[in-house]
């Protein structure tokens, strides 16, 4: 069974009197406990797909199904217990005036889940942060630590699906490695399904089994991990992206 099914999704919205076609007829399927990547340059619509799933961008046409069920509008509480999102910029996605304790316990309060004390401590532990960080503010943490908090926050409701919007592109190379390792560990431990967006093909390749290359709001080509490693892409754009990946030049 597919965990996430998207069929012919289009996202159009008016901006400055013009219709912006951010996503145009994109379809994809992500199986249970799979990890699927979306890759493309800025403005290719890859983040918009994640936002549309969460109800943060308008769905103009097409359907989104989670676990076989079409998503309701508004998304509602049951949806947020199954699907959570981690945003790109850990400097912007945490409330600057809330302590980590408050950030992490808020989803529990909204959903009426008790025992938040123990859960917050455990959540910090799970992402490799000391319990002493609990009453700190985001500005007292480094970028990598903040992204760990953002991941912990997304996992508070024990969702099945994590939508990851460029989770490491704001981080240093060495911190990126730690964060990717953390995400892979959590996926293995909890059987999570990942839908991950990145502009870095090497990161997607490391994390995902299948990848959809996007350009100008359209799907260009879907590749398996083997096809990507073997450079068996059929379209020119996917090849351009592959060749621009810094790591290839030096590795080969």
């Amino acid at each position, binding site marked *: 069974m597919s965990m996430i099914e998207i069929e012919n999704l289009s996202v159009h919205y008016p901006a400055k009197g013009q219709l912006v076609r951010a996503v145009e007829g994109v379809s994809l399927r992500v199986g249970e406990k799979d990890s699927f990547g979306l890759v493309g340059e800025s403005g290719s619509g890859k983040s918009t797909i994640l936002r549309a799933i969460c109800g943060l961008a308008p769905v103009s046409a097409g359907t989104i199904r989670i676990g076989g069920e079409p998503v309701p509008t508004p998304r509602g509480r049951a949806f947020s217990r199954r699907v959570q999102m981690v945003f790109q910029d850990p400097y912007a996605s945490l409330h600057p005036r809330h302590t980590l304790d408050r950030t992490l316990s808020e989803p529990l309060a909204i959903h009426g889940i008790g025992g938040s004390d123990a859960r917050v401590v455990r959540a910090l532990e799970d992402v490799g942060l000391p319990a002493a960080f609990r009453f700190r503010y985001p500005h007292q943490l480094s970028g990598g630590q903040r992204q760990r908090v953002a991941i912990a926050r997304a996992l508070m409701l024990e969702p099945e699906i994590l939508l990851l919007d460029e989770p490491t592109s704001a981080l240093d*190379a060495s911190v990126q490695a*730690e964060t990717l390792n953390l995400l892979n*560990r959590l996926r293995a431990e909890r059987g999570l399904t990942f839908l991950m967006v990145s502009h870095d093909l090497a990161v997607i390749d490391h994390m995902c089994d299948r990848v959809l290359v996007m350009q100008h709001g359209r799907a260009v080509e879907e590749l398996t991990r083997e096809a990507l490693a073997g450079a068996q892409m059929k379209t020119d754009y996917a090849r351009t992206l592959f060749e621009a990946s810094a790591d290839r030049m*030096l590795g080969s």
Partner: protein
Amino acid sequence: MTLLSVKNLRVTFDTEAGKVEAVRGVSFSLGRERLGIVGESGSGKTMTGRSVLRLIRPPGRIEAEEMRFDGIDLMAASERQMRALRGQRIAMVMQDPKYSLNPVMKIGAQLTEGLRLRDGMSAKAARLKAIEALEAVQIRGPERVMEAYPHELSGGMGQRVMIAMMLIPNPDLLIADEPTSALDVTVQAEVLSILDGLVRDRGMGLIFISHDLRLVGRFCDRVLVMYKGRVVEELEAKNLMNATHPYTQGLLNCLPRIGGNRSPLPGLDRAAEWAE
């Protein structure tokens, strides 16, 4: 020929909690070549770049045995002399176009401001020169971009505008501080090839600051690897794969590769003795 020589550079911040040394005894020299400075956040790479322009605000202090640019002693130069150097002969491209361009000024006005005030050019001549500079960084439709505000440009365009702005006075030395880390890979490659062409055609010296060791290795002639304010290794970029220092090796290995084996990426172990 040596364009810039730096000996035993130190940058110290006096804070309430005591002295913090951001840069501790960095020495290097630069000809008309491309020098990469690589390190993690907080390694002092940006501070090293800014020190060359003496752009460190109090409570920060710069000390050096020698800092000489084309025969001029940068440590002894007056503020007035430094102002004449900045932009004109040593230019700096900042990391993020979102924060480094004036958000309420049109691109054209920002590009021509210096030409009009400093060089006393007429509005028309300055405009022509600005359009030329935009063309040099391969911006299509420079007339349209001249009339745009920074928020109307994409990240890649904004970064190119900043490079164009820095290149108008034809500097001898360009310091680029993470000029591509806010950009997509495809755009990154374009911006790098633009920089590369400019360095080659104009014979500039370039200091390229980045946290991405592989990118630097591909693009520069020589690489300094910094850790906690010190240079731990200096090597020719083509020998990067034979780096001997464990920190350099760590930086190289922590990046995922296409077709890699998916095992957990090696983290960096940051041994305290490297900082000694």
